[in-house]
């Protein structure tokens, strides 16, 4: 049994946000972090590793500089890094990205008792599409929005957190789970983990390595293979701060009515 965790290096939006003249993010000039939801996915994998001793492989598609992120994850306890990197893959949208990552995982070898953990969504795109699409491409079941995961044999019990409640789902391996931040609290790197992380294996798949995989085709990867076309990107105007009315229903209703009438809305 082994666990794949899909991870993405994203711009640190808590720092300065740099935008290019065309409205897209100027990634090169921003500090990077590991996508926050992906950290929960890593922690979920490491928890199972603590119990079972299984191998954990962090998989990322991105530029070679993503190695620094993979090394940090290794310093937390991840055993191996798999970096899918190549010019041909650049400009991929979620459809093409999941195609490529699915090919990478399949090329590495997905076995019946394996699990894939993904973060729910990346803070730079907020699509929440890549995890589920990887599962579709690999023809394995997926459970999204995991807020609790327990494992017994080849069965995982997952509490799916929904807006108005939760759903408990049982799923068999191999499967893909997308994780939300309520799932756990990611551990830090450790001193000995940092000491050892530079000796752990980092595998790099470039285009040549993956080009014969059935999912990889010039028409389904990279900018050309991406069905998404950006029509326009813009920063939405800032909304003013809201106002919270507190008190009994009667009082707040009265206050609300007077505010609305002051503004000549009623």
């Amino acid at each position, binding site marked *: 049994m082994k666990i794949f965790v899909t991870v993405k290096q994203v711009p640190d939006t808590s720092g300065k946000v740099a935008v290019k003249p065309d409205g897209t993010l100027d990634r090169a000039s921003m500090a990077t972090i590991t996508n926050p939801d992906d950290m929960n996915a890593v922690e979920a994998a490491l928890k199972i590793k603590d119990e079972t001793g299984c191998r954990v492989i962090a998989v990322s598609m991105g530029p070679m500089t993503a190695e*620094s992120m993979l*090394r*940090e994850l290794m*310093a937390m306890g991840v055993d191996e890094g798999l970096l899918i990197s190549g010019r041909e893959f650049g400009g991929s949208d979620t459809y093409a990205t999941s195609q490529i990552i699915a090919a990478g995982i399949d090329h590495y070898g997905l076995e019946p008792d394996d699990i894939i953990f993904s973060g729910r969504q990346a803070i730079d795109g907020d699509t929440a599409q890549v995890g589920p699409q990887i599962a579709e491409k690999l023809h394995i079941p997926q459970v999204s929005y995991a807020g609790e995961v327990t494992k017994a044999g080849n069965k995982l019990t997952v509490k799916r957190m929904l807006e108005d409640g939760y759903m408990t789902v049982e799923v068999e391996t191999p499967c893909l789970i997308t994780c939300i931040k309520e799932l756990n609290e990611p551990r*830090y*790197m*450790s*001193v*000995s*983990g*940092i*000491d050892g*992380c*530079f000796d752990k294996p980092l595998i790099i798949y470039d285009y040549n390595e993956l080009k014969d995989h059935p999912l990889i085709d010039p028409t389904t990867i990279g900018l050309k293979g991406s069905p998404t076309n950006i029509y326009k990107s813009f920063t939405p105007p800032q909304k003013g701060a809201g106002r919270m009315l507190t008190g009994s229903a009667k009082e707040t209703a009265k206050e609300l009515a007077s505010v609305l009438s002051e503004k000549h809305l009623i």
Partner: protein
Amino acid sequence: MILDAKHAMLQKLFREFAQTEFTKELQDRLDQTGEFDWDIHKKMAKYGFMGLRIPKEYGGSGMDYLAYALMIEELARVDAVLSIYANTSNSLGGGPLLLAGSEEQKKKYLPPVASGEKIVVFCLTEPGAGSDAGGTTTTAVQDGDDFILNGRKTFVSGAPMADWAIIFAKTDPTARGSRGISMFILDMKLPGVTLGAPEKKMGINGYPTCDIVMENVRVPGDCLVGQLNKGFSIAMRTLDGGRLGMAAQAVGIAQSCLDEAVKYAKERKQFGRPISDFQGVSFMLADMEAEIQAARQLVYHAAELKDHNMDATRACSAAKLIAAETANRCAYKAVQIHGGYGYIKEYKVERLYRDARICSIYEGTSQIQQVVIAADLLKNA
């Protein structure tokens, strides 16, 4: 110095850990109650902080002095006292065993210290022997295979929590000055060992300091660490490394002073603009920045010398002297920039001012660093 990938990653770990775990609530509680917090101690141990410098074969992670300096600096930048939590085992506590301990002693004492289960403290200072540490009056008299210890050690950081204490005692009463002193590891549970009341301190509250009194304490012979009568030179070599750590702590405190001062100077408005617009204020910030840069580089350089097994006595003392004085000057300026608010406990600089004050006192006062530097300078001139 530009850090390599490994040290940059360590720095990131220490920074993230301190910023997240050293909550304001924890910092205030430590400062107000003065009590040791086992939870944060255990958490720091879990991530390998206590055993950072202890070699792998004794349960630590065998990191270098640069890693140690980075750790103390980053922890102290958030809370000075919590940097001491991770310091003792890597420095004055574990150091003497690493320098002079036998294989059995290292195997027995170091692994539980590295894992944070046990605490070992360092006892050199006595009521009458501070800067003049060689003036030790604690005695150890051989009795069969054992030694009988009598005396009083003062200002022992961590004494109330300690399982073991490194004790320096006179074993040859005929030898003069710092000669004839031996080093022992004392089990704090032995009959005849008692603690003084915890000192009420100006700062670094939350890591209790008190006296250890020994009255006819029978210590087995295998608790002698290193050679008989040769303990003082081990103490001095331990303090080299210790001073490096305390210099790093001073840099962390100084940086924290600057961080707070910059933030406040940009927020606070007088005469219709932020006070950082006034050169009288911004030049104070500039001086702080320049001095901190200088102190930090001295610390990293001293660490590098030690990591290359080069003579670092003068460099460690120089780093401690400059960093400690820098921390004090920065604390003064940070409070000054805060005006009246800097004098009020609600603001962090009020505590920084008190914490900074210890830097130029313990592990050798600034004057003693000058003594060490001058002696080394003149010896080689």
